[in-house]
């Protein structure tokens, strides 16, 4: 099973720190006191909540409905009661809040009726829809809805399906243990992806520092008689980046501007394949995931954790050391310090690292760039980080795009090797989000302009139509009058020939009067409208005044006495004139 491997340029070899969490098998984390399930856990549209406070939910029940095709459903991780649907702080570098469904577990962990399906009897569309309904998303960290990646390009034949089991970031071992303990279901899940995409080859890439996982996967592949190739790739960060793994296994380079299917290749994480299989063969939506809990803790281990479990509670299971001062979500290269220990585990959470200054000593201050080029040598995408750094720093965003900033995968290799300790990735993230914001503004401005121009056009057209209508009505009336006059004239002066010249002047005169009467009619209409509006205004005002502040009804005796005392004091201090001192003066009076 030897195969020619390709190489990507650059890369770094940080200490892997994986052995700590490999000693113990996967454990089931106990039910937490409360589950905070964010609705937006994948790329794409924010799912709409379909439950309310007070609802009883079962494990696996839909709580957030997918909004649009690129969006994935969200489910209740256990049975219990919905406490609220409200804003809560998110595991996001911004530390901002987003909509979450908060569930109090009832301890029974009772499943909803699960419906296993025979996917081979379904059409590919039905399978994709099923995966969307089950909330299957990329669990490697990018959380792109999986069903959206399961359509082959119409023009390019699908050559390779790459399955990512490389797991290159230091500290993280959840995929390693998943492959060791649940290889069979992973392989079955890969089979589903294979049937949907029909690739010529299926390649499972695993870094060569995980021989046990590779052996388990090989055994499972052989046992199931699948023609998948398990390939051990050299251990080099970031070999587990989708683009890097595709490069290593197939030699194809995917630019930022293209989808990988356009090059006939697609990539999925092993954990995604596993959850896809659970969803299809057991009818279980994604309500939990494997999380490595490691770092500054007494017992590093991998846990099967319900989505929504507060990170602080999960960390307690691994007995954090007393000098722990924060939680890093993700690995040390690409992860970030979460803003609060209350933030929930989400589908993107593959690892929690207890942070301490001993483990991650603070970096010495940044120094100027000396143009040593170390960053360019380390960059796996052959970019020039120092150039992008200069232009990001100068906020010259056009130039950063010329240097292909959107090809940067934010892997952190450049910051890792920079002798001046410049936080290069932070500059790139800043530049990228500025460029996106500008793009959004520009699109909004273009839309506004188009709508403004359309409105102007419409106004013009309406004006023209109105004028035409008025003219027509006037002409019709004039014609009618003329006809009447002609008839009258004919009746009166029967023998003599009708004086056509006189009739014509009459017509003109009557037309003029019609036009004169038309304007007063319009004026009267306007007056009526104005009067109606004035009446409505009066009504609205009355309504507003009629509103009583609600918190002053049903006061207890104690509160009433307190209020009376306060009023007495205010009167004594001549703060109010007694006439106005009624206790329940409506607030609207003051604002009016």
């Amino acid at each position: 099973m030897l195969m020619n491997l390709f190489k990507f340029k650059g890369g770094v070899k940080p200490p892997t720190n994986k052995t700590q969490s490999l000693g113990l098998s996967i454990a089931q984390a106990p039910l937490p006191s409360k589950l905070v399930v964010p609705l937006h856990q994948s790329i794409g549209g924010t799912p709409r909540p379909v439950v309310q406070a007070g609802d009883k939910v079962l494990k696996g029940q839909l709580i957030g409905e997918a909004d649009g095709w690129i969006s994935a459903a969200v489910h209740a991780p256990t049975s219990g009661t919905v406490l609220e649907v409200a804003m809560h702080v998110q595991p996001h570098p911004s530390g901002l809040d987003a909509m979450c469904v908060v569930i109090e577990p009832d301890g029974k962990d009772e499943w909803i009726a699960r419906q296993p399906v025979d996917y081979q009897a379904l059409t590919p569309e039905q399978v994709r829809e099923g995966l969307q309904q089950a909330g299957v998303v990329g669990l490697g960290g990018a959380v792109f809805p999986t069903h959206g990646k399961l359509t082959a390009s119409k023009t390019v034949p699908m050559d390779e399906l790459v399955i990512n089991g490389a797991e290159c970031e230091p500290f993280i071992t959840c995929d390693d243990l998943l492959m060791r303990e649940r290889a069979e279901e992973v392989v079955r899940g890969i089979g589903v992806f294979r049937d949907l995409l029909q690739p010529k080859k299926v390649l499972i890439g695993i870094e060569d520092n995980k021989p046990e996982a590779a052996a388990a996967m090989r055994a499972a592949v052989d046992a199931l008689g699948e023609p998948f190739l398990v390939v051990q790739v050299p251990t080099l960060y970031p070999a587990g980046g989708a683009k890097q793994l595709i490069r290593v296994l197939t030699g194809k380079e995917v630019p930022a501007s293209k989808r990988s299917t356009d090059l006939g290749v697609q990539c999925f994480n092993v954990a995604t394949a596993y959850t896809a299989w659970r969803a299809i063969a057991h009818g279980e939506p994604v309500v939990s995931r494997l999380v490595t809990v490691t770092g500054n803790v007494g017992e590093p281990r991998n846990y099967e954790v319900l989505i929504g479990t507060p990170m602080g509670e999960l960390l307690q299971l691994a007995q954090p050391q007393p000098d722990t001062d924060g939680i890093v979500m993700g690995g040390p290269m690409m992860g970030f310090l979460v803003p609060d220990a209350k933030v929930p585990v989400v589908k993107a959470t593959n690892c929690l690292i207890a942070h301490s200054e001993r483990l991650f000593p603070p970096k010495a201050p940044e120094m100027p760039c000396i143009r040593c080029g170390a960053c360019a040598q380390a960059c796996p995408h052959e970019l020039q980080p120092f150039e992008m750094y200069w232009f990001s720093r100068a906020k010259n965003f056009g130039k950063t795009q010329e240097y292909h900033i959107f090809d940067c995968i934010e892997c952190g290799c450049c910051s890792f090797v920079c002798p001046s300790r410049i936080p290069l990735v932070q500059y790139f993230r800043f530049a990228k989000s500025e460029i996106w914001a500008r793009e959004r503004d520009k699109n909004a401005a273009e839309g506004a302009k188009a709508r403004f121009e359309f409105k102007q056009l419409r106004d013009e057209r309406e004006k023209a139509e109105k004028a035409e209508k008025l003219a027509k009505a006037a002409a019709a009336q004039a014609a009618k009058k003329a006809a009447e006059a002609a008839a009258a004239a004919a009746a009166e002066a029967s023998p003599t020939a009708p004086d056509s010249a006189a009739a014509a002047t009459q017509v003109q005169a009557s037309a003029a009067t019609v036009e004169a009467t038309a304007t007063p009619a319009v004026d009267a209409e306007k007056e009526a409208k104005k009067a109606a509006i004035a009446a409505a205004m009066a009504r609205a005002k009355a309504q507003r005044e009629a509103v009583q502040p609600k918190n002053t009804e049903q006061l207890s005796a104690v509160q009433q006495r307190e209020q009376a005392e306060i009023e007495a004091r205010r009167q004594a201090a001549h703060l109010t004139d007694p006439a106005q001192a009624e206790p329940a003066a409506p607030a609207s009076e003051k604002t009016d």
Partner: protein
Amino acid sequence: MDILLAIAIMALGAVVLGAALGFASIKFKVEGDPLVEKIEAILPQTQCGQCGFPGCKPYAEAIAKGDVDINLCPPGGMEGVAKLADLLGREVKPLDAEEKPKQIAIIDENTCIGCTLCIQACPVDAIVGAAKQMHTIITPLCTGCELCLPPCPVECIRMEAITENIDNWKWKYPVVEIKAAPLQKAA
């Protein structure tokens, strides 16, 4: 004889090239004024009229003619002024008004009487409603121009600044730590 031939050849050349140029000027005619378009691309398209012109395009036309200052558009802010100055080779001037954070309008739906006056005022069709029905604002389309506030007879429209949320949050500019150099004694 020779000189006549030379003149004839030159004349023929002139005719042919002139025809080619004439054809090119018809074929590759630039629609509209490219400068006005460039200026308009910089203006924020809020269509609020605060610059004293009925919309962004008339202001762009006036700037292109050179009759007005480039610092009259408050929604564009100082950044807009700087960009215009850059494009036109004029000097950057401080903005002729206060810079405000970006806002959107919100209709208090309980008070709305359905008079449709705000719909007529909104330059970018960002309000939906019908006579005697509740009206509401399509938030993503609202440019925050405030033109719908004065016509509302029951004053139920208010402006609210757009707050930061996870979708519009931006990574901040990295702050460089400055380390105090150890004091050195003068030799």
